[in-house]
């Protein structure tokens, strides 16, 4: 069997709420993460929302 070296890094494509959560959990568990975002800032669609239910918290 061919010995294949596994690389301990991950690329997360998309810096919205789900991508950020992935990136944080992976980094905190000891993996190097590249978080790639198309636009000029992370945050995704949630950053556009005014408030979130059920508590009407500010989504920032």
């Amino acid at each position, binding site marked *: 069997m061919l010995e*294949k*070296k*596994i*690389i*301990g*890094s*991950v*690329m*997360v*494509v*998309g*810096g*919205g*709420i*789900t*991508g*950020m*959560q*992935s990136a944080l*959990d*992976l*980094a*905190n*568990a*000891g*993996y*190097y993460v*590249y*978080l*790639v*975002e*198309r*636009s*000029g*800032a*992370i*945050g*995704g*669609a*949630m*950053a*556009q*929302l*005014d*408030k*979130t*239910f*059920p*508590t*009407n*918290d500010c*989504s*920032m």
Partner: protein
Amino acid sequence: MTLCEVTDVTGAAGKFTVTVKEHPRYVDVDKCIACGECAAKCPKKVDDEYNADTGKRKAIYVKYAQAVPLKYQIDPDACIWLKKPGRCGACAKVCPAGAINFDDTGKIHQIDVGSVIMAPGFDCFDPTGIEPYGFGEYPNVITSMQLERYLSASGPTEGHLVRPSDGKPVRKMAFLQCVGSRDEHLCGNGYCSSVCCMYAIKEAVIAKDHVPDLQATIFYMDMRTHGKEFDEYYQRAKTETGVRFVRCRVGGVEPEGKEGDLRLHYVNEQGRQIEEYFDLVVLSVGLETPKNVLELADRAGVRLTADNFAAVSSFAPVTTSTPGIFTCGAFSGPKDIPQSVMEGSAAAAAVADVLAPARHELAKKKTFPPERDIMDEELRIGVFVCHCGSNIAGYLDVEEVADYAATLPGVVYVERNLFTCSQDTQDLMVKVIRENNLNRIVVSACTPRTHEPLFHETIRTAGLNEYLFEMANIRNQDSWVHTDDRVAATEKAKDLTRMAVAKVAWQNPLENVSVPITGRALVIGGGLAGMAAALNMARQGFPVELVEKSAVLGGNGLHLHTTWTGEHISNRLFNLVHDVRNCDLITVHMETEVVAAEGYVGNFTSTLRGKSGRKFAIAHGVTVIATGGTRLMPDEYGYSEHREVVSALEFDKLKEVGDVHVRNANSFVFIQCVGSREEDRNYCSKVCCTHSVQAAIELKKENSARQVYILYRDMRTYGQREALYKQARELGVVFINYELHGKPEVEKTDNGFAVTVWDHVLHRPLLIQADMIVLAAAILPSPGAEKLARLYKVPLDNHGFFQEAHAKLRPVDFATDGLFVAGMAHYPKPVEESIAQALAASARAATLLSQDEIVLDGIKAEVDPDFCDGCALCIDVCPYHAITLVESKDKDGVQELTVSVNKAHCKGCGLCQGTCPKRGISVAGFTFKQIESQIEAALTV
């Protein structure tokens, strides 16, 4: 890596090469200090996509005020210079940091990684040109995302709800649901977007909050509020807020007069043709996969569903068809925030399953020089006063503040910086601290909320204890709010700086608290969720103790046949049980219950009691609660009297074994929401609509002559399940809507049952002859939940399901660290959502289990034994259960009382300090002496 696009993925799991195209920003991020001078001078205005085109931005801009990174960028399609060099360049002329770089070019990066997670999100459906809605034609027809921006304080109208056409306040607004969803005819998307019902209700409630006498109407087909606490929110919107709900598809939107009013025509619930006027119409647009993602998926070999979402199995909900490439969020189907967050964590767990052998290989930890002992040194305070570009310096005299700071007791060094937070200033600070032997630092600038961690790191790099630091917020609390009074603002900045200096003078070095972690997990519950979590943790290398109350593994999964996608549950469940049983790192404790628990994150001890009654203790670092749910035994529709009236799960079993009642029956009636969405149990059990629709399809497929009726309140076949609903209708399943006030009535007759229900289409009662009646009985919390909640001191919600730390952002964690929830213990949910949450719990647990110790900050409550008399008032107010009463006897045998603080539990909130009548407890970094000095300094002029 922002402004970056993945253009290609090659290789295989464990070693991929990803090609990333980085677009030029034209602003040097190391230099840009986000002062905003450039945007103020930029002459070019364009539509702002962040505001969903409701407002304008400049050609040089930040995406939004709180953007990360907070760095400006130039839009090359709008910038005058980039289109015709030499023409403008205003930004470059005013930038105080010299950050503008018109010669910036794109770059191509080739990056080797072990795994890839695709989390590209969604695009909102664009309703432009869909004829009946008039979006793009009539200004007062807007999308839900645009409304979101109008309602936001940071939006184009600062939260004032006005009509786009004339700026008049909105008095009457309508929401049209399912625009770009559940509509193949007009917009080509057959699926349900899952989130629009709930966001429309939220937007209506918030809009009414802004304009109290606003009339808000939501026109809908089925109200799909199937998530946790969603139905209650819906009911409150209806009864308390006064949002009107009308069940119908609106035929069209037309202009009325020249003022911008809009006319809607629709058929109401009584069957009448109605025309009604509104001044704002909101289109609740659905979600779809962005076009560029479809291309990338194609290149990466990721298989898609017919609805253009990533195809996944219910048993591996974040695993794409390409090994090593995972997905989370809306790419695998429309979903809401909590589910997306869960999947984010779940994808991390799935990646770790593959990459665990290489954990810690590439991730680096920052190292710091040893700390200097300052306890015997005399006070040498350094003060750094920040200009924040013109943010502070524009409104107060920074030089005067700095000169004043130099006169304060203990201050030996003062400096002004254009931007104290910039990287070059950090390097300078380290040098200054070392050269001048400073031992306390004050930064008069902005808020510690965003910048304190940066300065802590800087002074730590200079060899000082990170807590020998204080910030004075002369921006948010001063220059920003006193823009019209330079003299007073300057005086206030002096006051704030003087207070900070007074406080830091009494600051001693604090030690961060390290807590060792027991690298073992306890999973309570051996159903799908519990097993999935246990297996994933074990595959990452962590030993797991799995506790199951009953004599079999599998939980509710044992009673289920197929997932909504048609996958066989029993086969997969059998494999899962086999893998768990054969995993060396999982110890299974059958017929065992938790009877006692103590400890805290990283250090729990749980006592288990096995079948024989023998008790034994297990030490573990994390706890996953996955105790599932149970089903309601209905007490209506003749359930307990007639053997032909059965619950859904019983029906599945009878059908499987070829029961004579099922075989001989010709007419089947499914009754939905039996025990769900009623008083006292005002939640949706989420899975029953899909389950009944699937059973109905099967009955019809077996024999199309069968009569199959589904009596429902709202058909909640959310997401891509909508295809099943469509298929059932095509096969001739009859769907009849009923309301809570007109529930179906079941009567036994000589040859079966007579079911009476009010038909909303025909507007008269309908009599159905039925041979068999199937009840979609509610899902209840597990009966053991209450006891477990008490043992681990975690909360339950109103209905008895476990309450997560935050409904949106922490859907798997409990407020208490080290405890996690997964599966139906949290809320009723289908297989793939249970497994996603289980994987998420595993990922969250792994962030702890992969460390040797947890480092907590040093801001903790400390007891002063000279003053504490053990009155225990602080114990009651502590929200983290960190304080306990300690009884002891002195040498004469007299009882002594005091309290002790568990530093691992304490979050330093200070409630104890505020409550204590005797100065017996205080929080380090906020001692009585420090706060008194600060107050004295405030009062001294």
